């Protein structure tokens, strides 16, 4: 059960039950839809971008505990960051859950987001953790949609 408790940690279960910033954001100037066509998860990220800073961020959508908690914690982590800082977090998070970044050995800005490191042992669930991040990234870039469809072959269909 040690592996299981690593994935479903209390923090993740808590964010699943009470997702933060879980509402439509009035006054958002960027909106992006994220969709995982393989499992049907979908979410919308609302962003208020002002002078290169993410002033406010929220999401709504449906998905599993991993995807909901990842979205909730993503909004907390990215809110208040500059575009460049958000980009850095996006890449670090993605590298961590795909096993390319050793969050303990390599310098990074992930902080509390490290609890998602366990996802890399569940290839079928990597997309769940990264969907919100791809969607946020699309909003950052001004795109309206994001999909996990074009991820690598290692990131298996659940």
């Amino acid at each position: 059960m040690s592996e299981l408790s690593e994935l479903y940690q209390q923090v993740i279960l808590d964010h699943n039950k009470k997702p933060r910033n879980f509402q439509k954001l009035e006054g958002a100037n960027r909106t992006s839809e994220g969709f995982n066509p393989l499992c049907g998860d979908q979410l919308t990220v609302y962003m208020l971008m002002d002078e290169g800073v993410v002033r406010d961020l929220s999401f709504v959508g449906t998905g599993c505990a991993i995807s909901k908690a990842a979205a909730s914690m993503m909004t907390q982590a990215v809110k208040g960051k500059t575009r460049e800082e958000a980009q850095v977090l996006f890449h670090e998070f993605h590298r961590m859950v795909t096993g390319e970044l050793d969050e303990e050995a390599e310098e990074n800005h992930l902080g509390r987001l490290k609890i998602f490191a366990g996802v890399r042992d569940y290839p079928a669930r990597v997309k769940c953790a990264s969907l919100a991040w791809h969607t946020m990234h699309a909003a950052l870039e001004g795109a309206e949609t994001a999909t996990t469809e074009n991820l690598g072959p290692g990131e298996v269909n659940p």
Partner: protein
Amino acid sequence: MAAAEDTIRAGAEAKAWDVERVREDFPVLSQTVNGKPLVYLDNAASAQVPRIVIERGAKYLREEHSNIHRGVHYLSQKATSAYEGAREKVKRFINAREARECIFVRGVTEGINLVMHGYGRKFVREGDEIVVSEMEHHSNLVPWQMLCEEKGARLRVIPMNDEGELVLDEFDGLLNERTKLVCVGHVSNSLGTVNPVKEIVARAHKQGVPVLVDGAQGAPHLKVDVQDLDCDFYAISGHKMFAPTGSGVLYGKAEWLEKMNPFIGGGSMIRTVTFERSTYAAIPDKFEAGTPAIASAIGLGAAIDYLNGIDREAAHAHERELLAYATERLTSIEGVRIIGTAREKASVLGFVIGDVHPHDVGTILDQEGIAIRAGHHCAQPVMQHFGVPATARASFAFYNTKEEVDRLVAAVQKVIEVFA
């Protein structure tokens, strides 16, 4: 063929189903997953393969491999007769009139697409109608949508009730002179419902409409007799009935297959070829262009031998017992909701646990060594009907045990603890 004799012996003894003896025929079942004995309850996605099928495929590759229908040499004749022998076995298994009515395809999806291209593109015109049911797998829905879009035809849907049973009273009203084909699953892959296909065929034929039956989940759980059903097409996936992937069959009445357009063009499906025009081979060759999955087809023949060697009545009774036991035990857990409660069900059990997402259920069960399917099961309209994004699905084969159901139940309770 010692294994085959063993199997037959097991069948003879199997008045009371000897599940432990049968499990020995399936090497994959004896492994551990995440430190626990594997509990394989994902049979509706793909069933496991018995030893005699593995050995038959290996023997073919070791001793008989060559291309079929071409060479005059020894190996080609060996391979051809094994391949055509498998077709004969399929014919007897589903009680087709003739072996040439059994087309080897990759699986049900390819079989249905063959009918869509061969029958649909030839006979369906603007304003015509195709009837499907609300519980179809995407493989028996999307090809017909594609056809309707291309032809300007209309898709009509037989509705289902909240038990997951088709509302047959509404079916007759959907049939009219524009109806060109009825496409319905024998057994729902997401709900387990056994549909009254014989009745559906009879009603459709009264209006002169042919019927295609998706038999992906029918062939593993029911005795299939295509003459008794009187369906015009019946599609089977070998890998769901203990054969290798890449083996499948489209049965079609010869009178239809002969009238239909070919599907895939190329070698083997022609009679003569010039630059001006080509003429096509007779059935079944007309629909089998290119080198087929020879080893898989021979494996399907061996799987049919295996099924003939066991007491299938007892096997199916055992599956029904597992379904009833699992349904009763899961229903008694607070927060578990069974999706699909038809009176007639095969051993496919869809469920949800409170508002826990089925993917989380699947991951936690996997940690317990239990393989189930979590998702929309390629039946998104079914999920929409029941108002859920996805379900967890346990599907039982005759090699599963009551102890495995107990492990499933214990793991479901663990899910509830984690998400309490």
